[in-house]
């Protein structure tokens, strides 16, 4: 399956920086944030956050929509799902889920 418009290289590149993964984590915890809200909780300059968001938007990992005068940012998991579809068989999903649960139980956290 091809990732049209969201080139697969762009997705991997976007995910290759810890700052950008952190931004995705923040959106997963609280979807639909403004730039100001995202900056308030980051130890990065507004310029740096803006730059990272642009890379995430180019990969369509982040999509935006306007509500009044506010530009809200949303996590778009669709490209990641398409990548997982490419290499993970549907019958493996259950076993992988069980492994992930076990790891979470043993390690007590989800992020890596």
């Amino acid at each position, binding site marked *: *399956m091809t990732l049209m418009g*969201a080139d697969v290289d762009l997705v991997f590149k976007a995910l290759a920086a810890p700052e950008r993964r952190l931004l995705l984590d923040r959106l997963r915890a*609280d*979807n639909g944030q403004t730039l100001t809200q995202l900056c308030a909780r980051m130890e990065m300059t507004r310029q740096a956050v803006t730059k990272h968001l642009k890379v995430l938007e180019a990969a*369509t990992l982040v*999509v935006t929509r306007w509500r009044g005068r506010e530009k809200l940012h949303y996590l*778009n998991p669709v490209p990641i*799902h*398409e990548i997982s579809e490419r290499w993970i068989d549907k019958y493996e999903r259950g076993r992988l889920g069980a492994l992930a649960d076990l790891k979470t139980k043993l390690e007590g956290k989800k992020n890596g």
Partner: protein
Amino acid sequence: MAESEFVYVTYIRTTPEKLWQALTEPEFTRKFWANTVQECEWTQGATWKIVVPDGRAADTGEVVEIDRPKKLVLTWRNHLFPEMEAEGFSRMTYVLEAKDGVVKLTLTHTMEKKDSKTIKAVSNGWPHLLASLKSLLETGESLAGTDKWPEGI
């Protein structure tokens, strides 16, 4: 936030008209949308429902806005899970934009309620549905298993 919402975007190599058909017509939805069909006259104000293979209406609502093949806004209430049914109507929007032989599909689903169970549930299901829809339109085949209603629901 006073509401729960997600916005999903996918790019599909097709035309807006074909994508619209795939999202609404039984011969397509049966293949990628868990063997369900949607019953609706597809006019503003018309009632709308998703019917599962055993005949139950899983979700119902109304057409709020329709501009084929560019935009569709539906109210959406689930009836299979009591905690979701109790939340009442959510709002789902498809926007289709064609560019260079590719259609950008933007799907927004909103509930005027914080931490909505409906939004949490549908947000988990949509990425797989969208991937299967994309596969169906680009290759002629939906993803394995997406043409069947899940057992026990």
